[in-house]
């Protein structure tokens, strides 16, 4: 009877029918001959503890998503500007402060140079943006520095770019989060005491949101990004109006303001201020990396969006610097909880009215979103590296919510560790930031120069000129940034990049070596086994689990023997008597172990068996069949199978040896009558 059901009666006697049960249906779906697709229920844990953990996970990160549920949303220019520019535009919230922080060392007069430095950085931004417009057109599938450098220069330079990018993404999270917390502290100074806790909580929230599969939803990004841009433009316009009309008067110094230094304003200090301010360029490459996400024509839309972003960033950055200078704004001391430069600049336009608070909140939000940009980019790059064999494979697996969980968690952990280490102080993190960014810029531009020279498409000459000038300029800035910030933290990046590349190469070599060893030639036809087989069953006594193991062993080979290791000769004799009576046909070898060891004598016995094998014959396959009692609860796992576990570990990797675990469940009934409890 199918499914154990009786035939159902019909209207007539002959019209009976049988309902056929479909046991596969809850778990699988047939999609073709011999092809099944697993359903959600197939991935569900079967134990109560597993189900409980799955329920908790579902509450935290949501229900698992099928691969086909991935949303392939194409972005309009307005949405893309909000999504990809939050990282770059948000840096205008702290770049001016970083310049001023260096210049104050040379006294109040040195602050005047901040405008020239910001203009120089804006020119650099224009060159980089112009260069990246070329990347958008040449790499419509996404021209991250890794992709460009790898395909156009060499795999090694690609890896250097990848290492620099990964560092850049980690730094973006750390710097943006700490700066966002700074903005909140500007409106609620009491938060200063909880600076690190607040930053870590923020990273945790972003991590959970990304593990849930937070898509780059334009609406989430659009509101704070456009609010920040709109209000910042109002602040700059108001400041410029006040300057023109002569209403811009110096603000009184806040109590937390840094003291002016007495250093000479020399080349080194200028370069250092330039290097600190060049943090404004971080995130410029994001649009070039995400070209495929744009609506068609992708490359043109991406290039135009990049231009708008660069113009906005340039205007905001230079504008904020000009206004800050006009009002004689001086940054607050590190970790003092004083207002940020952007907050003081905002105060010149909005006073302490509600718009000031709205702007500070928008600034904090755009900075959090900038951190979130890295949560999209880092795991993807790590996944690409994993696919190319340079990172552990789990980085390439997508979790329940289609997110690269390993990448997300790794990024959060490293960024959080950095924040804790540097006390959540933005200025201390900045020196580590720019080096990686400029390594990427330089390699990417160099790759583009090679690209144009190789393809010689129409307009290659002027395109080459643009990218070459970008490469030279960013390379010069890289040297400047790395040298002037070397002692204040950039050395870490200079050490980390080659270390990371070495790790990439090591992982790749490992994977290649294992692949070489595991490869089956295309012309190789698998023949029946030619080695002889023998089975050894280590037994603790005679019980149901052992009987089941003997049955399994007999199904593998005729050459079966049981081995009993004991330190008690009387117990051994008793067992032998029972064994010969109850398990005839399977010889029992008793190994007396006066030193009470179990695993050692067992492996030694297997070695002896190997040595005793005729040397003219090919070594046999030895199956070690281990009877195991399946524990029902966690505490049962402590009580049982400890020796089996140790034996399994000891035999792992032994040549020509296969370990077979034969689990015995309490519910299972075996043929012979049992003799007492489990092992």
């Amino acid at each position, binding site marked *: 009877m199918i499914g154990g059901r009786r035939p159902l009666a*019909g*209207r007539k006697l002959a019209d*009976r029918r049988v309902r*056929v049960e*479909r046991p596969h*249906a809850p778990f699988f*779906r047939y999609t073709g001959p011999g092809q099944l697709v697993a359903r959600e229920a197939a991935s569900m844990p079967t134990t109560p503890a597993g189900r409980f953990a799955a329920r908790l996970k579902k509450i935290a990160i949501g229900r698992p998503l099928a691969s086909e549920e991935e949303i392939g949303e194409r972005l309009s220019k307005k949405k893309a500007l909000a999504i990809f520019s939050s990282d770059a535009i948000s840096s205008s919230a702290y770049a001016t402060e970083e310049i001023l922080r260096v210049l104050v060392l040379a006294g109040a007069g040195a602050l005047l140079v901040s405008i020239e430095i910001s203009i120089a950085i804006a020119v650099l931004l224009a060159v980089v943006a112009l260069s990246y417009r070329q990347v958008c057109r040449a790499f419509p599938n996404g021209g991250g520095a890794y992709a460009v450098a790898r395909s156009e220069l060499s795999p090694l330079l690609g890896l250097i770019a990848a290492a620099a990018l990964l560092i850049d993404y980690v730094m973006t999270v750390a710097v943006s989060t700490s700066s966002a917390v700074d903005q909140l502290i500007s409106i609620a100074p009491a938060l200063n005491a909880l600076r690190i806790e607040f930053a870590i909580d923020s990273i945790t929230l972003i991590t959970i949101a990304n593990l849930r599969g937070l898509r780059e939803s334009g609406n989430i990004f659009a509101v704070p990004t456009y609010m920040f841009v709109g209000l910042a433009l109002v602040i700059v316009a108001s400041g410029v109006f006040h300057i023109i009309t002569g209403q811009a008067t110096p603000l009184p110094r806040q109590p937390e303001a840094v003291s002016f230094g007495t250093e000479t304003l020399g080349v080194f200090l200028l370069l250092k201020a330039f290097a600190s301010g060049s943090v404004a360029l971080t995130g410029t490459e994001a649009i070039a990396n995400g070209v495929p996400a744009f609506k068609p024509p992708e490359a043109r839309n991406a290039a135009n969006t990049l231009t708008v972003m660069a113009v906005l960033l340039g205007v905001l950055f230079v504008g904020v610097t000009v206004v800050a200078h006009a009002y004689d704004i001086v940054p607050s001391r590190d970790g003092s909880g004083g207002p940020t430069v952007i907050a003081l600049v905002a105060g010149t336009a909005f006073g302490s009215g509600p718009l000031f608070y709205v702007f500070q909140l928008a600034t904090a939000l755009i900075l959090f979103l900038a951190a979130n940009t890295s949560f999209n980019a880092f795991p993807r790059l790590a996944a690409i590296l994993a696919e190319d064999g340079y990172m552990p494979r789990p980085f390439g697996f997508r979790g329940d919510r289609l997110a690269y969980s390993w990448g997300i968690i790794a990024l959060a952990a490293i960024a959080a560790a950095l924040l804790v280490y540097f006390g959540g102080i933005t200025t201390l993190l900045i020196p580590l930031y720019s080096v990686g960014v400029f390594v990427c810029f330089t390699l990417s531009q160099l790759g583009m120069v090679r690209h144009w020279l190789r393809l010689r498409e129409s307009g290659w000459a002027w395109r080459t000129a643009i990218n070459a000038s970008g490469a030279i300029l960013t390379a010069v800035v890289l040297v400047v940034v790395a040298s002037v910030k070397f002692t204040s933290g950039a050395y870490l990046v200079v050490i980390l990049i080659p270390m990371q590349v070495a790790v990439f190469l090591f992982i790749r070599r490992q994977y290649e070596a294992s692949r070489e060893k595991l490869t089956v030639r295309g012309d190789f036809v698998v023949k029946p086994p030619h080695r002889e087989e023998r089975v050894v069953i280590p037994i603790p006594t005679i019980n149901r689990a052992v009987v089941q193991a003997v049955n399994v062993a007999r199904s593998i080979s005729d050459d079966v023997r049981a081995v009993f290791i004991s330190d008690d000769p009387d117990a051994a004799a008793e067992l032998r008597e029972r064994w010969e009576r109850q398990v005839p046909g399977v010889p029992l070898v008793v190994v007396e172990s006066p030193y009470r060891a179990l695993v050692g004598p067992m492996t030694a016995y297997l070695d002896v068996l190997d040595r005793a094998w005729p040397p003219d014959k090919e070594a046999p396959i030895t199956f070690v069949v281990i009877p195991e009692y399946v524990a029902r609860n966690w505490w049962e796992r402590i009580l049982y199978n400890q020796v089996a576990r140790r034996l399994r570990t000891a035999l792992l990797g032994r040549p020509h040896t296969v370990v077979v675990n034969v689990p015995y469940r309490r519910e299972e009934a075996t043929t012979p009558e049992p003799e007492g409890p489990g092992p």
Partner: protein
Amino acid sequence: MPNPEQTVVFRRAVVALNGGSSDARIVRLAAGVARQWKAELVAVHVVEIDWTQPLDADIAGRSEDVQRVLDLAEETAEDCQYKIEPVLLQARDVGAALVDEATEQRADMLILGLPYRKRFGGDFAIGSTIPYVLKNAPCAVWVVREPIPEESA
């Protein structure tokens, strides 16, 4: 929102599947109509067992092709964001099994597809199942005829 003045088409419908090209069409159609009234759908596929074998012979359960008919129906319904309950039957006569199942399921609609066969000059092979169902079903019967392909029209 359904028009309150409109008559409820059905509350529970049996959708008869034969593994042919019209299956997906009638499932989509049924799901579209059922959604308006939150009606229940039951997909029924009947495997005909000839008299040389016992009625409960293990045939339908072992056949991937048979299982796929209902799996595809479930998948099509899910694509339409609707739920369909699959039922697999073995019987001597498909028409009788469909009528009996519709009766037992208390269905107020039985939906069948009428495929267009291109072979032998092209025709609707109405067979014996549809006439039987039309004559004997206790509920309304909805026969969905496939459109005639353009090259045959």
